[in-house]
């Protein structure tokens, strides 16, 4: 009996190791391909990777920055993973993040005198609402069978930053920052607390809570069963009496709201004001995190960490080798290429 149990545990561990090895192989291949590209343009990939390693693991502060990046990545990844279970592709995390940041800022700027214990939940609610509305629109259009949600969420990514620009160049332009378009600084009570003298902030707890929520809802509740039923076979689910429209719209809205929380975290904890360029593509990176993790919660946690390192490569390339940050997108694309090219897509039924 005991030997059998031990054997089973050993098998389980071996299976995990195999998965981890596979992930590792993907990353190594992608890094190798990216090195070639860097070599072609006359940059030193080994130095770039070594610098990244030294920066992120060399000291406590660098490591803490990885955790800082993980919060928006986790949130935007959950915002992709949740709709994917119902068969929706949400590529609008970036726009939803920006709308969350916008509405959270509205809360912070409108009620600067509220104490933190009221203002921060209010801002979080605003952030959630902003992202939720931004995602509910594609959700409604999809549920009414009008437009595919992929293209609408993508398009709305371009609109959200324009709304922010309108406000920070116009009504919300801070007085002390006349030369640089941004809102006035938030009051202290609108700032999420940070821990241990780093920039790690309460948003990370929020992100972990969102991940837990995702796992609980999808795996442990009746809603989750119905969501997965719709994802598996919408027609059958509808015939069973599951309200398709309601589920589609609310899942999209909740996902958008979760991405909106990432925006709230960025303005409240990191920036302390509303400005452009809040996110170096966290919404898109979150999509990759969720896609690579196969929407498994543990995988999302691991991949969010890996992508926190990968986005650091972008910073390092920018700082030490004078390359644009966007170059790191090549690395992300290559990772996705390797994964997509390695495992032929499953036969899809529609």
């Amino acid at each position, binding site marked *: 009996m005991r030997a059998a149990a031990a054997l089973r545990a050993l098998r389980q561990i071996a299976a995990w190791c195999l998965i981890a090895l596979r992930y590792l192989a993907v990353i190594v291949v992608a890094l190798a391909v990216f090195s070639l*590209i860097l070599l072609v*343009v006359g940059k030193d990939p080994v130095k770039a990777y070594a610098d990244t390693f030294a920066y992120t693991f060399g000291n406590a502060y660098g490591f803490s920055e990885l955790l800082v990046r993980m919060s928006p990545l986790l949130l935007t990844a959950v915002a992709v993973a949740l709709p994917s279970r119902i068969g929706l*592709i949400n*590529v609008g995390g970036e726009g939803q993040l920006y709308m969350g940041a916008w509405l959270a800022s509205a809360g912070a700027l409108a009620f600067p005198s509220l104490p933190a214990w009221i203002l921060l939940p209010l801002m979080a609610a605003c952030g959630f609402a902003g992202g939720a509305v931004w995602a509910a629109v594609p959700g409604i*259009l999809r549920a*009414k*069978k*009008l*437009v*595919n949600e*992929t*293209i*609408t969420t*993508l*398009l*709305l*990514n*371009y*609109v959200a930053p*324009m*709304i922010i*620009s*309108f406000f920070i*160049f*116009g009504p919300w332009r801070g007085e002390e920052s006349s030369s640089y378009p941004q809102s006035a600084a938030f009051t202290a009570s609108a700032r999420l607390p940070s821990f241990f003298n780093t920039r790690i902030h309460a948003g990370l707890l929020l992100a972990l809570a969102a991940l837990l929520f995702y796992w609980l809802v999808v795996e442990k509740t009746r809603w989750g069963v119905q969501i997965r039923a719709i994802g598996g076979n919408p027609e059958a689910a509808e015939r069973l009496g599951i309200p398709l429209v309601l589920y589609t719209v609310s899942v999209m809205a909740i996902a958008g709201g979760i991405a909106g929380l990432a925006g709230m975290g960025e303005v409240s904890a990191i920036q302390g004001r509303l400005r452009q360029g809040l996110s170096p593509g966290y919404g*898109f990176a979150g*999509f*990759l995190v969720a*896609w690579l993790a196969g929407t498994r919660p543990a995988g999302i946690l691991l991949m969010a960490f890996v992508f926190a390192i990968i986005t650091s490569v972008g910073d390092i390339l920018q700082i030490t080798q004078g*390359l*644009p*940050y*966007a*170059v*790191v*997108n*090549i*690395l*992300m*694309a*290559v990772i*996705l*290429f390797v994964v*997509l*090219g*390695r495992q*032929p*897509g499953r*036969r*899809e039924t*529609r």
Partner: protein
Amino acid sequence: MIATLLRGVLAGAILSGTLLLYATLGEVIVERAGIVNLGLEGILLIGASVAFAVASVSGSAYLGVVAAAVAGGITALLFGYLVVSRKANQLASGLALMFFGSGVSALVGKSYVGGVIAGLPKIRVPWLSGLSWVRSSTLFNWDILVYLTIPVALLAWWLLFRTRWGLGVRAVGENPAAAYASGRRPQLLQYQALFVGGLFGGAAGAHLSVSLTRTWNEGMTAGRGFIAIALVIFSKWHPIRAVVGALVFGGAEALQLQLQARGAQVSPFLLDMFPYLLTLAVLLAWGGARRAAAPAGLGRTFYGTE
């Protein structure tokens, strides 16, 4: 006043519509072969950066356009390897291509940020450009790519609907298995369609950087690739209707620029949203109804005969 506004919008519609048309035509051909290339945005960016870099180095904007088209074609083949040969998910591969294009274009264009080039030479139409109503505008004083729009749209129509190749491409897009059974090679045709679509996409990006702005900026296509994908639906996967769609959307962009130039009391950021909101409105109005016109095999992976 109205006349000058109208003239400005018309002139702008043709200029901004040109790149939308090339991009849309390319995507029409690709989608007719049953493949959705969401990475069109990435191809546009690569086209724009390569065209600008080549034009800056060689001094010839024409060479830049050719290089951009080739780069677009090659990029599309890379996408083809994933979705055709490796049978990867088309949406995810398209998004990967968008990332790839954004990164590669940033790398290619790095040394050219802030630079301005002479751009594609303008060619006046002798008599028409002298008409009094036309003289002070850019009408009939266009670069080669603008003049080529209608011929190229006709060419795309001819290719798709009047050649054996086009018949094959459309057959693959409707039902690859049936096309295979009738002796066609679905994968080869899809690769060919992707390459042609990539050429168009690269040229479209080139028109943005070497003619419209004559500068390079990271991410300068600003979602036009996605607008073009919406235009494909608007034009019911038909090259000639794509001309109308491109003009309407070019017009939206032009109207917004004209209003800004004329000092309209509306924030430029709100006006900037106009083309995107119009795209959404168009998708809303026709997205559902026009799905019937889509190639039946669109977006589905053909697993071949194994």
